[in-house]
């Protein structure tokens, strides 16, 4: 075991190199993106569900919606407050949130998720009239 020192040095260098990204970016966490609400969204105050629920679980809502609309031909969503909404990404969600770039994309980019909704669903019904 004559090269014990070299082995320990090697392990130390390896650990430093592997953890380098963490050292390098220490204390510089990217701030959570700020979402912009359109005037219409602000005016409505309440989304389909509560704000916390939507922030966390909007994908579940959309998944339920697409299943109900496409497969069961049920197109009306009644929220816990008893208010009715037409289940449509392009026509209901994006009617208020007509700023996809500042509302949807910012968070999706931050979380590095790439939903392919907009391959088919037209992103902003009111972009041009």
């Amino acid at each position: 075991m004559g090269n014990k020192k070299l082995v320990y040095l090697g392990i130390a260098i390896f650990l430093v190199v592997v953890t380098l990204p963490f050292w390098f970016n220490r204390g510089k966490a990217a701030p959570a993106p700020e979402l912009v609400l359109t005037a219409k969204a602000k005016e409505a105050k309440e989304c389909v569900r509560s704000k916390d629920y939507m922030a966390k679980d909007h994908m579940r809502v959309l998944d339920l919606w697409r299943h109900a609309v496409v497969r069961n031909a049920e197109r009306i969503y009644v929220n816990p407050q008893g208010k009715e909404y037409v289940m449509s990404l392009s026509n209901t969600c994006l009617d208020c949130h007509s700023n996809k770039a500042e509302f949807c994309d910012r968070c999706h980019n931050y979380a590095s998720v790439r939903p392919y909704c907009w391959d088919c669903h037209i992103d902003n019904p009111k972009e041009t009239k």
Partner: protein
Amino acid sequence: MERSRRDILKLFGISALALSTGPVLDAFAAEQAEHGAAAEPYVKMGGKALKAQQWAMVVDTHKFESEEDFTPLIDACHKIHNVPSLPIKRQEIKWIWTAPYHNAFPMSPMKFIDEKLEHTPLLVLCNHCENPPCVRACPTNATFKNPDNGIVMMDFHRCIGCRFCMAACPFGARSFNFRDPRPFINPAELNKQFPTRTKGVVEKCNFCAERLAVGQLPACVEASNGKLVFGDLYDPESKVRELIRTNYTIRRKQALGTEPAVYYIV
């Protein structure tokens, strides 16, 4: 400390009891919480939605004279559904189109028929068969027959683009998106209320399910000025049943047993 067998068995017994009461108490607690919390959200059909056991269409071929009678219907459909117009014929996407009589009805070997019928094109579309072979072919259930209204629907979210349904459909009613269709839709005519499709999915006529849901008739029927009639095949009082009863109608490739729901008055 020495423990007797009896002590250990007692300990086991008490532990088992303690573990089994937990879930029971939780269940009681959950039930109480449910009564206290706000109502659960739910989904339903729109109040104005048109309903039928099996939607069907009757095409009155006598009322179609030339190409000009077809184009407004085809345009109305293709415009509201964002159907692209691709320049290459074999990549063409079509929901509703025309075919010559001998192509639309290759199994009806009628000789010496009325020349007008023989030479005027016929309007063809998805037949929304009562026994649809495309649905049986689909490995992902992306295409399915809606049990409530008989419409053979496409769920583009599930389509993997295998094209088994296209091979299975005897009417050529399905088109495959070989390329992204968006660049081939005229931006001025884009219907922003309706999605486009993406590369790699199969599409076809949906009997305007989205219009029926809000109480409107299909776009082609609305644009046809009575040349097409739409209604419930299983309602004996419906207009389609009356027309089928009082006229001689044929269906495409009836011998295959798919039970098409589009009837042609000839």
